[in-house]
């Protein structure tokens, strides 16, 4: 019996790079909370993936633009396609993947490595020189991160530079795979399948028939296996080729355990009894080793009992299950040896068209393709929903005579796929980008048949960058579905999301009329004697991850409407992340602006409602009375923020998209929140059900609601704590404090709406050496 493992999005390059540098496998965990200058070479520490929350939180701790005490790290990013990290950088340069070798070498040399300095264009040299100077000036707090797409040698070079800079990073032995006795590779398995060595194959929770690199030919090899069995959540592409498919329980339906990035272990306890007749993988593996009735619960207990004294186990077990985390289980920090300077990899051609493959922010490697919430969640930056597209820079597209929505054929290694073009800022010339996880044939009712399958062009020797890809215009069109069509802010419109340098932001220069919170008006003041709820969103901290959008969706029973409806311009998200690009310091910089309801004190939506369905409550909430609403939509037409959402069809109630009306999906709804009917307007309520719950608790205890007691769903989910909610009548509450910041502003404040949701301007921390010279 042999054990093989396959993960389409792995960390081989990073591991091999660590081995090159340190002689053994090590994971280096960056510590943003101790960093002041960070350089990312195609690394995306803030992007989707297992590190996003930890890195995001630490990054936010170091991006606090506050008049009292500002801590603001500077972030440089060089990458072929703008990632979330790149979007939040102070300086961003799109770089062709072939250039990284020379850039890394040049930087290492500048930091003192005995390497020949490669020839680089003057503009690039000026940029790198400024970055290197900044890094060196912050020894001890400067950090260089290399992305998985870079060659192992470049990872080793980054380790060398970090050692040189005494960078704030912690080394641990990799949590997975184990250093000895780990699984063999998928390539070995395919070889065994081809030769007939593998006559019985059990596939647990993997879908290699879809997501293995195309050159392996896994699907064909699988057909030659006499007995193949697939165990997984869904009957997917692999299951279709196997003799048997065994349904697995969802992780939330069964006992289990897991380890986080730094090794901390957690016990998973089921949230619900299994909905279907499923068997866990523990039960299946138990059968294989002769334990005929092994349950997940027993297997997990046995695993953890092994290392514990029998007398204290029960107590330990109960506490751990209660806490959710195994105490002190993090992998011990190691003191890594001095990294060796690696041999440089051979130069890669930087000409030709490079196809860059990336995990998808929603579908990831394809395993989340059938999740309707994720599919309808606009991808960061592109704002595309329900599919993927061939991304390229606007200049590149123009040079090739391509418009948004033109279908192109992408070719590499004799295989080809078709995808629509989507021009996007921040992509290097000569690069076309495609995200993984699409083109699935058997994902389910939601995920099948969406987008283009990038795995078809992926090769074992080119997992992330396929050099010399071919691109041909097909003459047909298939415009991608975008949740936001216009992103550019020019001229005075930049007041909507001001992008200001750190020094300027904290210097109180008076409020511009467009940002006035309380412009003069005719209307009387309404007193708010109890609570006055308000929200302040720090746009500097918003990394654009969409966690708030989905948290809101799950909390508030927001229905999925499907691609056709989104294409018509209809969507139901109560909270959206407006993404704007504007010129700053000589480059186009994106910014994220989460927009929930503003809960205006002088709400334009209220006086226009003929039936008083949109009214104000005594705590300043702009409430929508669903059963009073007759659907005139006057409120939305008069809302300058356009935050209201209308049930054009019974999206949640009778006319659902695809399988969204299934009882099992209805069962996931939050019982605290009304499900809205057709013809009714709805919108953000500041999670009024949570306010109401807190009020009940407080009243029972005969006290007032404490600061921080009400946490909205979006606020709870935000990894960077960019969203702050509280009572304006308490001078010490978070919103009250943030409203006193000099860079606080009201969106469209000059309209006199007096919004309760307000913003802090997006602050950047440019390097003066680059800003003046133009980089």
């Amino acid at each position, binding site marked *: 019996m042999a054990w093989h493992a396959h993960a389409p999005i792995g960390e081989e390059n990073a591991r091999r790079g660590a081995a090159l540098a340190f002689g053994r496998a090590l994971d280096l965990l960056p510590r943003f909370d101790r960093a002041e200058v960070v350089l990312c070479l195609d690394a995306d520490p803030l992007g989707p993936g297992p590190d996003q929350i930890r890195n995001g939180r630490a990054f936010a701790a170091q991006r606090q633009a506050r008049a009292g005490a500002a801590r603001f790290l500077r972030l440089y990013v060089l990458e072929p396609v703008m990632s979330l990290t790149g979007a939040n950088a102070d300086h961003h340069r799109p770089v062709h993947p072939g250039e990284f070798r020379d850039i890394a070498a040049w930087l290492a040399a500048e930091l003192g490595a005995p390497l020949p300095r490669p020839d680089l264009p003057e503009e690039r040299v000026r940029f790198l020189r400024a970055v290197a100077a900044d890094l060196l000036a912050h020894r001890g707090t400067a950090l260089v991160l290399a992305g998985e797409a870079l060659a192992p040698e470049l990872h080793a070079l980054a380790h060398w530079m970090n050692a040189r800079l005494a960078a704030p990073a912690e080394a641990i032995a990799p949590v997975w795979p184990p250093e000895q006795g780990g699984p063999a590779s998928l390539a070995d398995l395919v070889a065994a399948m081809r030769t007939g060595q593998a006559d019985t194959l059990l596939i647990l929770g993997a879908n290699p028939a879809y997501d293995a690199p195309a050159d392996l030919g896994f699907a064909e090899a699988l057909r030659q296996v006499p007995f193949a069995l697939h165990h997984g959540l869904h009957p997917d592409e692999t299951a279709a080729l196997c003799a048997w498919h065994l349904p697995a329980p969802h992780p939330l339906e069964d006992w289990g355990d897991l380890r986080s990035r730094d090794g901390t272990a957690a016990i998973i306890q089921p949230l619900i009894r299994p909905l279907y007749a499923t068997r866990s993988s523990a039960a299946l593996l138990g059968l294989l080793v002769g334990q005929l009735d092994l349950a997940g619960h027993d297997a997990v207990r046995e695993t953890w009992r092994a290392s514990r004294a029998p007398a204290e186990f029960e107590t330990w077990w109960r506490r751990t299950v209660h806490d959710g985390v195994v105490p002190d289980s993090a992998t011990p920090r190691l003191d890594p040896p001095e990294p060796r300077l690696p041999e440089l990899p051979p130069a890669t051609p930087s000409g030709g068209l490079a196809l860059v493959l990336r995990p998808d922010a929603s579908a990831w490697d394809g395993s989340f393709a059938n999740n309707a919430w994720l599919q309808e969640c606009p991808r960061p930056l592109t704002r595309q929903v329900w599919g993927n597209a061939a991304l390229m820079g606007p200049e590149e597209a123009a040079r090739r005579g391509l418009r948004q929505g033109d279908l192109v054929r992408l070719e590499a290694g004799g295989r080809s796929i078709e995808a629509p073009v989507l021009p996007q800022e921040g992509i290097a010339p000569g690069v076309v980008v495609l995200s993984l996880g699409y083109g699935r044939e058997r994902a389910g009712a939601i995920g099948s048949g969406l987008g283009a399958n990038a795995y078809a062009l992926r090769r074992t020797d080119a997992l992330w960058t396929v050099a010399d890809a071919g691109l041909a215009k097909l003459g047909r069109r298939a415009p991608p579905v975008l949740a936001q069509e216009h992103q550019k802010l020019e001229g005075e419109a930049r007041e909507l999301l001001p992008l200001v340098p750190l020094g300027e932001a904290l210097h109180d220069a008076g409020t511009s009329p467009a940002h006035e919170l309380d412009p003069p008006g005719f209307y009387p003041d309404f007193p708010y004697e109890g609570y006055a709820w308000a929200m302040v969103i720090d746009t500097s901290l918003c990394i654009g991850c969409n966690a708030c959008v989905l948290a809101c969706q799950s909390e508030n029973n927001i229905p999925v409407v499907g691609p056709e409806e989104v294409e018509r311009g*209809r969507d139901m998200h109560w909270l959206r992340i407006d993404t704007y690009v504007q010129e700053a310091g000589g480059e186009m910089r994106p910014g994220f602006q989460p927009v929930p309801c503003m809960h205006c004190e002088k709400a334009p939506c209220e006086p*226009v409602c*003929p039936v008083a369905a949109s009214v104000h409550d005594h705590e300043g909430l702009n409430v929508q009375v669903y059963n009073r609403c007759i659907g005139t939509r006057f409120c*939305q*037409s008069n809302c*300058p923020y356009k935050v209201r959402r209308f049930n054009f069809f019974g999206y949640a109630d009778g006319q659902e998209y695809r399988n969204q009306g299934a009882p099992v999906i209805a069962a996931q709804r939050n019982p605290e929140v009304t499900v809205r009917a057709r*013809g009714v307007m709805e919108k953000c309520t500041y999670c009024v059900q949570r306010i109401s719950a807190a009020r009940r608790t407080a009243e029972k205890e005969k006290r007032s609601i404490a600061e921080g007691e009400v946490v909205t769903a979006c606020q709870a989910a935000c990894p960077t704590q960019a969203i702050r909610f509280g009572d304006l009548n308490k001078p010490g509450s978070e919103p009250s404090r943030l409203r006193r910041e000099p860079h606080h502003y009201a969106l469209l404040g000059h309209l006199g709406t007096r919004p309760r949701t307000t913003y802090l301007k997006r602050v950047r921390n440019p390097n003066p050496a680059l800003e003046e010279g133009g980089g």
Partner: protein
Amino acid sequence: MSATADKPTLPPEASYAGMIGRVADPVLERRPGRRWWIGFGATLLLTLGFAVCLAWLFIEGVGIWGINTPVVWGFAIANFVWWLGIGHAGTLISALLLITRQNWRASINRFAEAMTLFAATIAGLFPIMHLGRPYRFYWLVPYPNTMEVWPQWRSALVWDFAAISTYIIFSILFWYWGLIPDLATMRDRARGRIARYAYGAFSLGWRGSARHWQRHDALYRAMAGLAVPLVVSVHSVVGMDFAASLMPGWQETIFPPYFVVGAMFSGFAMVVTLAVLVRRGLGLQAVITERHFDGMGKIVLAGSVAMGISYLTEWFTTWYGGDRIEYEHLAYLFTGDYAPLYYVMLFCNVLVPQILWLGRMRRNIAVAFVVSIVINIGMWLERILIIWNTLSHTHLPSMRHVFYPTFWDWATLGCSIGLFAFLFFCFVRLVPSVAMHDLNKRLHQEKEARG
């Protein structure tokens, strides 16, 4: 216009009985011709189509239209404003021309009022169809209810509801009161028993008594006096649906008068269209003469000039005001997604009617017909563009989205025109299309003037 008032518009050899015969005979004596049956059948089909549109709308929901998250208003509101605008001319012709003693109105006021009635009724359907939950429209009415809530009086839609329901009730009464003496005439001329009874009942037993006439005249003139401010208020309120908002391109003080002028303009254009058709269809060349077209042409021309001035004022104040979003809106009108339609609208509403400066063209019935149709296309475009341009291009660029009409959008608009025509086909066969008593009064005056 005053010149028209003094100049005789009716043929000198005309007699009272002759005039009545011309108007009443097509209804009472002549059988409907083939053309009428074809028109009646076709518009009946469209009316059934309208019923299908309504049924599908109520089954599926307003999602069958092209409206979307930012552009939550669409055809329904544009159609409403358009139809209501058309529904203004009839009352204006009757009332304003009555008060200003423009007695040539007698030839056209009846069918113009019928037009008002049909158009205003169809207009009144659209805001209800537009609702997400149309079966709850009566929540706009203030009545004591178990929910213990009232309409929200600050909403322009409540004003709308008050204004339009008042207007429709008023228009029905005004039209009917003007019709009563003619119904008596029809009763007295009808030969069929059913017709006699029906006309007799609807004429309320009118016997032309001097007392009837005195009170009729007092009431009718007082109603005409009320009609003018009412008509002005109704379309002002419709203008305020937009103006009493915060949106760029809507929040303009010029909107109420501009809407009233627009309504008059499109309404008169529709009167011209119908006058051409009624005149030809019923053979009323002696009753509706070139002079009438001359008079209406002058009003349409004045409307066009007023519209042009309104557009200019809008552009100027936006430019002069210097507000970012208003300025962007202005630029969007001329260069945005709907710019071609905007140019077509300007062509239809401002440029084409200028041909009416020439008296020869005003009196040319074919020209009048074409111009009036062009104007009504232009005015429909104006209404939809007011909605599209503002809602597609709002304050936040993130929420900008273009409206794409669906089949049901077009079908509902087209079938509503069919319904209007259907009602008109019924109208011309059931009641005299011209106010006979007013016509003969006018004839009497002209005879007196001639001595």
